């Protein structure tokens, strides 16, 4: 988001907090694509849309108490990040509860879900191929649960850095940055 749009959002959100209903539409027009894009970086398409909608509604529900001294963009993205975290936790809980993800009701594998899973694995492999071999090896060892060849703290730090590079490579490869 460029500086001018960011300043406009700051001003409009401050007006909305003050009770100026005329600022509703400009804030909506600015935030909806922004939140949708932000959520789609961290969640699959369907969940991203839901999370963006919930985040947008929550932003407006709290707009009356927005403190104009705070940064409007950070405040908005903070609410969206929390919503994304909630959706992720919900997905994780669903998986832990044993809800079928890939299999159909009769126990056979759902071909569409299998194809998506295969596609996802290929995308991860492609992103790993873009990394330094040491980073890729670290992440493979971490994913496989192999005992770390280094001390725990060093290995964790290395995994953290390799994950950051993987995320960056993934986004660049998928045209999101």
């Amino acid at each position, binding site marked *: 988001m460029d500086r001018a749009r960011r300043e406009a959002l700051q001003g409009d959100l401050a007006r*909305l907090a*003050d*009770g*100026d209903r005329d600022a*509703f*539409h400009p804030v*909506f027009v600015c935030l*909806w694509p922004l939140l949708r894009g932000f959520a789609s970086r961290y969640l699959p398409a*369907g969940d991203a*849309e*839901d999370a963006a*909608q919930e985040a*947008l*509604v*929550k*932003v*407006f*529900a*709290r*707009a*009356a*108490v927005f403190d104009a001294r705070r940064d409007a963009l950070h405040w908005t993205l903070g609410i969206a990040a929390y919503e994304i975290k909630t959706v992720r936790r919900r997905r994780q809980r669903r998986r832990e509860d044993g809800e079928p993800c890939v299999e159909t009701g009769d126990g056979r594998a759902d071909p569409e879900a299998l194809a998506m899973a295969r596609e996802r694995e290929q995308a991860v492999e492609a992103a790993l191929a873009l990394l330094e071999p040491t980073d890729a090896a670290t992440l493979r060892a971490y994913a496989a649960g192999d005992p770390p060849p280094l001390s725990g703290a060093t290995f964790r730090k290395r995994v953290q850095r390799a994950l950051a590079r993987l995320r960056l490579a993934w986004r660049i490869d998928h045209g999101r940055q």
Partner: protein
Amino acid sequence: MAVSEAVLSARARRAYERGRLLSALPTVALAVPMVGLSVVLCDRPTASMGCGLALVAVLVAASWRGRPYARGARAGLVAGLGPLLLPMATCFHLCMGGVCLLAPTACVVAALLGGAALGLYARHRIPGGPDAGGYLMAAIAVAALVGSLGCVIAGVSGIVGMVVGLALGTVPVLWWPARAS
């Protein structure tokens, strides 16, 4: 689930209006001890509750509407403190046990001072235009209702005196500098 922008906009709008109503709660909470004080000390619980309910309704409406109305309501809460507390103080410290003629006087004097302070504040801080009208309307309504909670101790004459005092205190301060300039 994908929904159209119009549906989402309507949902966001409803959430915003609901949020505005909830944002009125802290201001309304300020009125609760005032009403409690009036019910306990003024010996006219029905009148106190009536004034209290009217005050809560005006505060909710002004805070929900926002802008000059919300600012005016907050200023009115402060301006009404004098007519709320002074009659109670005079009754309990100067008129123990008998008929107290000081209470209506206290209502008028405190309302005059509160009104003058409100007028001065509005004159210096609130720019002219349509906003000023909304600000003054909300401020005077809230100050009068807060004052009524205290002046109910002196009966109807106390409340009427307080409202007149508030008007006499506010109007000249607002008009005099305007004529001078």
